């Protein structure tokens, strides 16, 4: 009889605690950032495809599934360092097979040469080119990620990738680079 009482008391207790735990699991569920989103947030969002995937998010998914973290030339050293910290793997130098780290660039269409074929519009991953069939196209400079993807499809080669100009707002205080003109002595 004692045995049965003990077993039933323990059983009831187990049931109650089970219910509490079950309730807590549902009620206090931690909505953690899925790893793909975290990786995606570290990538530069150029959408250039130099990593071999059609955009930053697909590459983020690939990294989450164990791909190398050193395939992103636009992100360069900084992105590799951040990814290695997030993924807990060793930082490797950039894989040269995917390209070199370069200065930030922006696409510019030489507008008088554009024939209005819309091929670059279809290639642009962020819809930063404006235009219509047989009309001149132009790049919305501040939306352009400098991914280079519009250059190849252009049949008349009228797209240039130019480095982003340095303006007083984004200047880096490189005092050594200022061409200081020495004022000549008058005497």
């Amino acid at each position, binding site marked *: 009889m004692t045995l049965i009482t003990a077993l039933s008391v323990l059983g009831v207790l187990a049931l109650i605690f089970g219910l509490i735990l079950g309730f807590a699991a549902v009620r206090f569920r931690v909505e953690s950032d899925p790893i793909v989103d975290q990786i995606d947030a570290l990538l530069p969002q150029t959408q250039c495809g130099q990593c071999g995937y059609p955009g930053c998010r697909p590459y983020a998914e690939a990294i989450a599934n164990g791909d190398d973290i050193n395939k992103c030339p636009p992100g360069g050293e900084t992105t590799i360092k951040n990814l290695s910290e997030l993924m807990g793997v060793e930082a490797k130098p950039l894989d040269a097979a995917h390209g070199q780290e370069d200065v930030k660039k922006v696409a510019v269409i030489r507008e008088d040469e554009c024939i209005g074929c819309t091929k670059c519009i279809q290639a642009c991953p962020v819809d930063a080119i404006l235009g219509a069939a047989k009309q001149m196209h132009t790049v919305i400079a501040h*939306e352009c990620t400098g991914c280079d993807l519009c250059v190849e499809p252009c049949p008349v080669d009228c797209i240039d990738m130019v480095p982003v100009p*340095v303006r007083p707002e984004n200047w880096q205080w490189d*005092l050594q680079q*200022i061409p200081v003109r020495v004022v000549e002595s008058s005497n």
Partner: protein
Amino acid sequence: MSAATKAIEAGHIWTFPGGIHPPERKELSNQSAIRQLPLAPHYHVPVKQHSGAPGDLLVQVGDKVKAGQALTQVGVNNGLPVHAPTSGTVTAIGAGIIAHPSGLADTIITITADGDDSATTLAPIADYTAVSRAELLERIKQAGIAGLGGAGFPTAQKLALQRPLDYLIINGVECEPYISADDRLMREHAQTIIDGTEILLHLAACEKALIAIEANKPEAISAFEALLHEHPKLALRVVPVKYPSGGEKQLIQLLTGRQVPSRGLPIDVGLVMQNVGTAYAVAQAVVQGKPLIERVVTVTGENVEQPGNYWVRLGTPVDYLLEQCGFKPEPEQRVIMGGPMMGFTLADLSVPVVKITNCILVPSSQELAPAQDEMACIRCGACADVCPAQLLPQQMVWLAKAKDYDGLEKQNLFDCIECGACAYVCPSEIPLVHYYRKAKAEIRNIAREKAKAEVARERFEARQERLEREKEERLERHRKAAEARKKAQAEAVEKGGDNPQDAVQAAIARAKARKAAQAAAAADKKTEGDDA
């Protein structure tokens, strides 16, 4: 009334940590009255002279303009207008070197003076209490007034924040060595500054203004003392001589004992601050309808023959200004815009005087030695002792050299006011502020890139979604078209018409029959041949 408020009312002066006492050298320029600079042949007016976006252009090359005529308007970016400094013709609009440490170019409107100096003004507002607050703010904005103390924040924007205020502080401290522009303005135009202060008080819906002047300006102090008894809402506060007492956060601490929170604004502690020059400009804009086209600039240093203060039209090229003051450059002469502590060396002397230019300093190499080579930090800690923001300068330099931007933000890099006190006392000649500015620029750039990446992601995802949707819509269209075709056929059959399917079957049958007939004919021919 709390004890703290009582102390403020009683005129108690608190103190702030750190600070330095560099040689003042103000006597070089503050001995003579403000002189009027003769008209220059050309003026270069940058469209952006304040912090924020530039206004939209109103003029074209070839346009005739009058002094005070707006060259840009507020526009879509909510910029601040700039005005023609004199009458003449717009001869160029294009890139030109601006008054910025980078020596980079920005849009500049060049005006060739006609010598008449005929002016246009806005309608004077005789009684500012009779017009609405919005109208007054609009006037201050249209007059192009930005903070003349140094940062160039649009004044109307600062006043538009409607939060309960305890005090308006008028900053006449001018603590940086050499500069005496505010000092002379206060001595000669105390009444106009007081008028401006009353307007600012009215706009800020505030009961009391504190006018702060550093103790080394006895003439300015007595000029105000003589006038203030008629103005019960205004009180004078004399602060002890120490650099940087004129810093916004430092002066607030001196006058009220309050500390502006990290990354916060004075309005967070119930205060707002304006420079004496700004108060003067506000009075001019409201009472006389004069837009901001000139300001007092101190031209000083041992390598100018007539150091002093000048009324300089905005847009006057620095080389013209120096020429008028007897510029006698020595080899490798440096020309500094601003003071010796916070100013910057000009890359080119063709740059114009702008709204925030308070001083042009032309030092000889004896009075201001050129920058020495940086030596190793000896960990003396002098920089930490003088930092008015109680930061750890040497720690921040190490972090800046290591590009540890997270670490720098943890050390509150953005509380640094770049006063230069740490670099001034450093025995190893380390240009500490330079490292901070570089790190700040880099951190801001990273934040900008991040924001841009976020936009690019959204656009990429929106495009993917659109392509997916278009594909589905296309398939859906094809499916619907096929269905409609089938339906039309079925209806046609029902009505007793020809089923297109029957026609196909008939055609196939015809083709089969023709083939069969051909085969039969060939067989017949063969038989005939055999027979023959």
